[in-house]
């Protein structure tokens, strides 16, 4: 187990280094000089050169990259070109908001998705199964930002029950969380159903029934734990997607999260902020995937004891 985890951690570190390199290089090809953008249009060349020097943009590229990596390691991502605020602090503040939104949506998606998937599997072929699966395919196929707007229209404007913007009070969390979670609830429901139906067919389920265990107990104790393995794979990748998918929802509800930061930095060509945001989101994404892989080891003893890896 320890060797499995340490191997995954080393792999993740390599990928992170690759990401930092790609991010850095991509930013070099951005058209337009960010310094010129950031200063007044009539700024004289001497001022521009001074600012470039001050930001370390006149150094050779490898040196700039090393400075960038060094900064990342020390949690110093520079200052925003525009607000002059430290990038790390802005990221940290925005991330707290996004994390709250993503966690709530995640909870909503898991609870709704797994229970709907299990119910559908238990009532396979019945009307309850087909209606739940129809709903889930609609949930998966509707854009989340559109669901958000529909929710705003129904619950905010027509029924006047819930606020349609902001993210300050618990009541304001409801619509954004549902909007972001619906899509993932749909895909979790679908994989849960497939996985449950697959596991129910296995020989060990018959063995458990032959021991005289209750059907429900067999499903909860023997089937669900095995069925969780593919569900966790999906949930893991979806958690990463959720953190970025929140950008769309943040726009609809004007929530000051990481998504808003990313969109702002892109439209302003605010290089340090952009670098920071991209690195940061990629980091979260990769770390979440790492955690998912490690959590397999706890569920599936075959991986824990080094027989075969999660593939």
């Amino acid at each position, binding site marked *: 187990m320890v060797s499995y985890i340490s191997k995954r951690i080393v792999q993740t570190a390599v990928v992170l280094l690759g990401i930092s390199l790609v991010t850095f290089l991509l930013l070099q090809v951005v058209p337009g000089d960010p310094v010129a953008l950031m200063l007044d249009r009539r700024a004289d060349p001497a001022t521009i050169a001074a600012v470039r020097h001050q930001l370390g943009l006149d150094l050779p590229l490898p040196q700039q990259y090393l400075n960038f990596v060094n900064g990342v390691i020390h949690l110093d991502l520079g200052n925003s070109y525009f607000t002059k605020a430290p990038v790390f602090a802005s990221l940290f503040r925005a991330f707290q908001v996004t994390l709250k939104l993503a966690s709530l949506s995640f909870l909503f998606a898991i609870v709704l998705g797994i229970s709907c998937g299990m119910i559908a599997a238990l009532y396979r072929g019945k009307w309850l199964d087909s209606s739940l699966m129809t709903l889930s395919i609609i949930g998966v196929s509707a854009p989340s930002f559109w669901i958000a707007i529909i929710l705003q229209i129904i619950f905010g404007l027509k029924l006047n029950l819930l606020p349609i913007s902001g993210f300050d009070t618990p009541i304001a969390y409801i619509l954004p969380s549902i909007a972001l979670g619906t899509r993932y609830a749909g895909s979790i429901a679908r994989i849960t159903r497939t996985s449950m139906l697959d596991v129910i067919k*296995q*020989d*060990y389920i*018959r*063995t*458990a*029934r*032959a*021991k*005289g*265990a*209750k*059907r429900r107990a067999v499903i909860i104790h*023997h089937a669900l*734990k*095995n069925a969780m393995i593919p569900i966790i794979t999906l949930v893991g990748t979806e958690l990463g997607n959720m953190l970025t998918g929140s950008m769309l929802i943040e726009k609809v509800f004007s929530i000051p999260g990481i998504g808003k930061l990313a969109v702002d930095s892109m439209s302003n060509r605010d290089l340090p902020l952009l670098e920071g945001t991209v690195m940061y989101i990629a980091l979260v994404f990769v770390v979440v995937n790492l955690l998912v892989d490690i959590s397999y080891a706890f*569920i*599936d*003893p*075959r991986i824990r*004891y080094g*027989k075969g890896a999660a593939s």
Partner: protein
Amino acid sequence: MKNEALLEVKNLRTYFHTEAGLVKSVDGVSFRVEKGKTLGIVGESGCGKSITSLSIMQLVETPPGKIEGGEILFEGENLLNKTEDEMREIRGKKIAMIFQEPMTSLNPVYTIGKQITEALLLHEKISKHEAKARALEMLKLVRIPLPEKRFNEYPHQLSGGMRQRVMIAMSLSCNPQLLICDEPTTALDVTIQAQILELINELKEKTGSSVIMITHDLGVISEVADDVMVMYAGKVVEQASTDEIFENPLHPYTVGLMNCIPKLNSDVDTLPTIKGMVPSFDNMPKGCAFCPRCSMAKKICEQKAPELVDVDGRKVRCFRYTKEWKEEA
């Protein structure tokens, strides 16, 4: 005078309603298992022997499968009239089952110990601690080395033979009156096969349980069974005691199976096999189901389905032992 029957199955019919049509997996099967005796059920895969055993346990997947009729009398009570809750009391406690694939029949995410104690905790009013002691005892009984260590291990850490021993320990933990073994040795090496059969025999003697041994291998039957039932395409084709069958097989199919047992003194390189395959259920012959593969078949075999007839106190489903056969000549 016959011994007391522990299990008596009468005219059992289990059908599967599939998209391709009705499949009569078990079609009018009757047999009895006496106390302390072993009944062998023989046949090729797909002949309905496993479905027969799952029907007794009432573990046939419904739908598509359904027990359409017949009686399953266990200790004089018809199991088909029991509720699901009553059946649960019987499964694992009074009738236990060992499955073919020890690789897949154990749950990969639970320890051996948890899986053995599960049956005990379900059926006996004992504490977890006592259950563990009983489970360790069972592991010793099936001769698993280092039972304390194995108790906390997972199925994938054990060899196939060890897993089948675990399955046996699990099924015998509540002292069942009837043990159904569905091809318990098919997936194992030859030497391990012999050990497992010996173990089943020995434990049967010790506990006085009855056994139903399901196999496609008459060699296994000769080692463990008192009586034999040969099945073909969902029907019984021959029933007799093991001695009688080996001395004088009546049905051409039984003869064919007999020829498939490897003999030590034969010098042929290839084993004889029965030509052809079990007919699929959507392509069942009108007459005798075995007719297309039978070397002795006559015209009547193509036209009419034979009944189970008595021959010297034995039962066989073949026209060779009827008047019609002699008449056709």
